[in-house]
């Protein structure tokens, strides 16, 4: 196990380097650049612009820029934002909380709902109930997030006035409840569109298990149906969901991008989008490396967790 983990860790580090290289090239290859914002300043001359570019190190060859950036990254210096000179790590940290809240709230909503839907569909395979559950999944899967968000804003915010349409809090109302009310619509949106992920995996896993002999044996020995579902089927179906969660959870960071934009939710997704628009290379690259590291770390943790939880995998 330890050897396996070390090997995995080594592979992950290599992957991280690769991702950062490709990302660096792609980000710098995008048309436009961070100089655009200076170019529009009144009285800007091309000589002054070149001076700024030189100051930012943008006039050097790309490979030199990469080496410079990655060497500093390795020592823990993630650079500063072009926009306001805030350190990149501080920026990420400030936006991480909002995204984590949104991700957690949507997970609390989507995971139980998706698992329940998947179990029901697996148990009622071939019946109208299964078709209905599948239909619901497909509908949720095909709903565009931005559209669903806008519909919720229109219905619950504009028409009914139940929930606020955006931002973390109402200025002057710092209370916990106010915060929860702001969280409601974005987490509902992100939660609903994430339901099909959990339901489809659960349906596949639970369906396989449901057809196995040990379920039939339990039935033939008089174990009540609810016990079979809750104590026999569910734990076995949840185990393979651990690695799925390990892959999925970090993608929430970027997956929440649309939701965060619609609801002006100041999270990581918003930060990425804004930074991209400004061609704020240090922040974009910082986010890229951060997300990639998070993906690799989560899948590693999930793998360890899976090994710890599944008695079949324990040596």
């Amino acid at each position: 196990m330890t050897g396996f983990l070390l090997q995995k860790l080594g592979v992950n580090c290599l992957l991280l380097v690769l991702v950062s290289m490709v990302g660096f090239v792609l980000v710098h290859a995008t048309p436009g650049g961070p100089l655009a914002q200076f170019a529009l300043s009144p009285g800007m001359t091309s000589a002054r612009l070149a001076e700024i570019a030189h100051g930012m190190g943008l006039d050097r060859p790309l490979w030199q820029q990469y080496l410079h950036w990655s060497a500093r990254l390795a020592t823990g210096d993630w650079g500063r934002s072009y926009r306001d000179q805030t350190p990149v790590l501080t920026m990420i940290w400030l936006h991480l909380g909002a995204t984590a809240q949104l991700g957690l709230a949507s997970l609390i909503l989507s995971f139980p709902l998706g698992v329940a839907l998947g179990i029901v569909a697996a148990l009622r395979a071939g019946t109208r109930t299964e078709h209905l559950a599948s239909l619901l999944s497909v509908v949720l899967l095909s709903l565009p997030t931005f559209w669903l968000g806008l519909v919720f804003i229109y219905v619950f915010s504009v028409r009914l006035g139940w929930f606020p349409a955006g931002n973390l809090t109402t200025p002057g109302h710092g209370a916990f409840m106010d915060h929860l009310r702001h969280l409601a619509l974005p987490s509902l949106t992100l939660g609903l569109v994430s339901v099909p992920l959990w339901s489809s995996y659960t349906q596949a896993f639970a369906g396989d298990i449901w057809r196995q002999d040990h379920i039939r044996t339990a039935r033939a020995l008089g174990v009540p149906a609810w016990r079979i579902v809750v104590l026999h089927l569910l734990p076995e179906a949840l185990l393979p969901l651990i690695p799925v969660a390990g892959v999925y959870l970090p993608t929430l960071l970027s997956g929440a991008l649309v939701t965060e934009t619609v609801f002006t939710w100041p999270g990581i997704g918003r930060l990425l989008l804004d930074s991209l628009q400004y061609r704020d290379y240090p922040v974009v690259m910082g986010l890229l490396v951060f997300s990639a590291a998070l993906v690799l770390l989560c899948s590693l943790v999930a793998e360890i967790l899976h090994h710890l939880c599944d008695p079949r995998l324990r040596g």
Partner: protein
Amino acid sequence: MTAPGGGPVLRVRKLGVSFGQTSLVDGLNFDVGRGEIVALVGESGSGKSVSSLAILGLLPGADISGSAVLHAPGPAGDRDGIELLGRPERLLRPLRGKRVSMIFQDPMSSLNPIRTIGAQLREILALHAGLDGRAAERRAVDLLAQVGIVDPQGCMRLIPQRLSGGMRQRVVIALAIAGGPDLLIADEPTTALDVTIQAQVLRLLLDLRADMGMAMVFITHNLAVASAIADRVVVLYAGQIVEDAPAAAFFAAPRMPYSRGLLAAAPGLDRIASGARRLGTLPGQVPPPDERGAGCRFAPRCAWMMPDPCARRMPALEHVAPAGPGGPPHLARCARLEEIGE
């Protein structure tokens, strides 16, 4: 093997199983006496498993007709027995594992792969014997010892993956007898095992019968296995019983041509000893449910077939010889029984 004053443990009458228009099994009649081991023998698709699953209410979506009465001791409905067919699930479920248990072919997949043997035994004991805590633990260890697990205490903590196929089937049997059932339906319980392990498991089942007086329906396609364990042999062909005989009489002189063919096609040591190398073969295959004619279902493959009456009328299941009063009956389904003789 009928206990004084008691009827058979299981009495099946006119059992029919169909899915929609397709009839898989029809008109099945057989009894299982107390402590008796009845082998249900037949090729794949003859309806062996389907019949027993139907009796236990484990065949969702099937249309089931007829009657299957469980005569079990107890305050409820002792004299008339308990009708299993059509019994609502909430009343049927408590009987399973307690009065009738069923075990299946593949011991590799018959146990929950992520729960320990101990947890699985304790669940059944809590359910059917009302035991928990220490008492359940002790009883579980006893059961494992009873089915011949060498280190029952250690076995309790293992998950099935750590056990061999034979050990797993022993654990499955321990689960099946934990509720102290009067009847065990065993669906090919030895088919997936090595021959030496097969013999051990058969030995175990015979011991359990002797210890607990538990009756058994033993489903198998293997006549050698049937001869080793059965008191009575019931041969199924294309969803019908074609012969029902005491084991000794059956293996000495099967009467229905299909049974003869089956026996001739079974490899056995006595055949090797007698120098006969060639196995008999049965030409053709079992007709699928929707291609069964009006006549004898075995007629198309039968060496003794005559266009009339075989292909025209379905022969009845008849007494082969006038059985003495109280003697075990020998029934066979063949229109030319007398002409063919022994």
